[in-house]
């Protein structure tokens, strides 16, 4: 499993070459922090998010759920305090993770997921989802499936761009982020901005499902590379 010059712990690879489906360079590193039970950093082009997972741990009585674990998600912006926008993103990430995690295996305990934004250059929510999934995987929490985030932007001329930069996001007519599950490639989460037709939506969903194949392949490669080193 050695591959020549790429000897650092993280793995970098170029995903996708086809003209329609073009994702930026991905990078991922797991267990880079010592204190959290699981951590990861996920890089999509210039967008970078650091994630840490603590748990299962003791839960506050007020937040205890008797038949499953309580999941808390915090998104910390690069500068300033988190506001209403972050709260809405946290809500999306939390519900996506809750659906994937088998939280009934850890009743009356707490899981906290902290996402620190290192740099935002577009597709932030999808990068957060990817970092969250890798961190949960690194923490060894039982999950029913994996998930990945894909952002699509529809440009003024109707052209669809996957994994847009913040410049492309600003110029776009509509922006959609989907979370796709690894089991059946179905849509777990969707968050959109701008108006679009039903047909455009279906195209974006189909494109995201194709992009998800590449991202899951990347997940597999980076995890395989990581474990081939420790053995």
């Amino acid at each position, binding site marked *: 499993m050695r591959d020549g010059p790429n000897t650092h712990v993280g793995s970098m690879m170029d995903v996708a070459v086809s003209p329609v489906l073009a994702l930026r360079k991905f990078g991922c590193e797991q267990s880079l922090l010592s204190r959290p039970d699981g951590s990861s950093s996920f890089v999509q082009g210039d967008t970078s998010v650091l994630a840490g997972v603590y748990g299962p741990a003791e839960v506050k009585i007020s937040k205890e759920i008797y038949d499953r674990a309580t999941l808390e998600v915090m998104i910390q912006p690069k500068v300033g305090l988190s506001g209403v926008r972050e*709260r809405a993103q946290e809500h*999306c990430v939390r*519900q996506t993770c809750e659906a994937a995690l088998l939280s009934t295996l850890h009743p009356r305990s707490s899981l906290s997921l902290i996402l620190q934004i290192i740099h935002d250059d577009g597709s932030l929510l999808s990068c957060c989802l990817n970092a969250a999934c890798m961190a949960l995987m690194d923490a060894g929490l039982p999950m029913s499936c994996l998930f990945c985030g894909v952002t699509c932007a529809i440009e003024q001329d109707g052209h669809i761009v996957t994994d847009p930069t913040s410049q492309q996001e600003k110029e776009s007519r509509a922006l959609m982020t989907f979370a796709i*599950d690894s089991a059946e490639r179905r849509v777990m989460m*969707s968050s959109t901005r701008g108006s679009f037709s039903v047909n455009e*939506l279906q195209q974006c*969903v189909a494109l995201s499902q194709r992009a998800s194949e590449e991202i899951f392949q990347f997940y597999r490669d980076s995890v395989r590379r990581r474990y081939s080193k420790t053995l």
Partner: protein
Amino acid sequence: YNFTYPFSSSISTANGSALVKIGNTTVICGIKGELTCPPSDAPNKGYIVPNVDLPPLCSSRFRPGPPSEQAQVASQFIADVIDSSNVIQKEDLCIEKGKLSWVLYCDIICLDYDGNLLDTCVVALLAALKNARLPEVTINKETDLAEVNTDKLHHLNVSKHPVSSSFSIFDNTIVIVDPTVEEETLSTAMMTVVTDEDDRLCMLHKPGGSALSGEKLQDCISRAVTRHREVSKLIEKVMDSFEPDK
């Protein structure tokens, strides 16, 4: 579907207001216009500031104190609907480029919480915006001060009519339209689709939960389009019935 009763209510101190009831869920929306400087990055625009409040009065699940996560998520949702659907052209809120523009504070307060909050909020917002009347403002060339003519009131130019439809999803098999609070808590996922009168989607909001297949998604969207027709017809009927009184 449960029946919808929108009422244009009379909060006399607000520029526009509406009380909307869907099933048991009751929401009141007040719109207050204030004058301000336009944002420096877009000197020809005004502001719309929505806020959703879930006071302890509406349900035992809400405690007094700072706004709950759900209230913040709902506020952000309403702000996104306003931006995505262009319900009001923000350029219309500008009075003098770079100098003076309107800021519309849309305060939405829930009085009775029985699920389907987002749909009710969107209907209340739309009805209140249609009902809102702002005074004419001119800038005096000599003194450079704004003069408000409260005798001349004019309606806002509501360019789009977004209507939202929420669905409770039970494991990709059962889909319930217009869910009550019990149905919402038992469901494995929620989804809200916002459509406008041209059958375009303004928002497809599904905050996680169990996965949904493409066919079910399509099914929900077609239901949302049908529901849009029904709801907008109802809003128009109610608005018309109120107009002659004024």
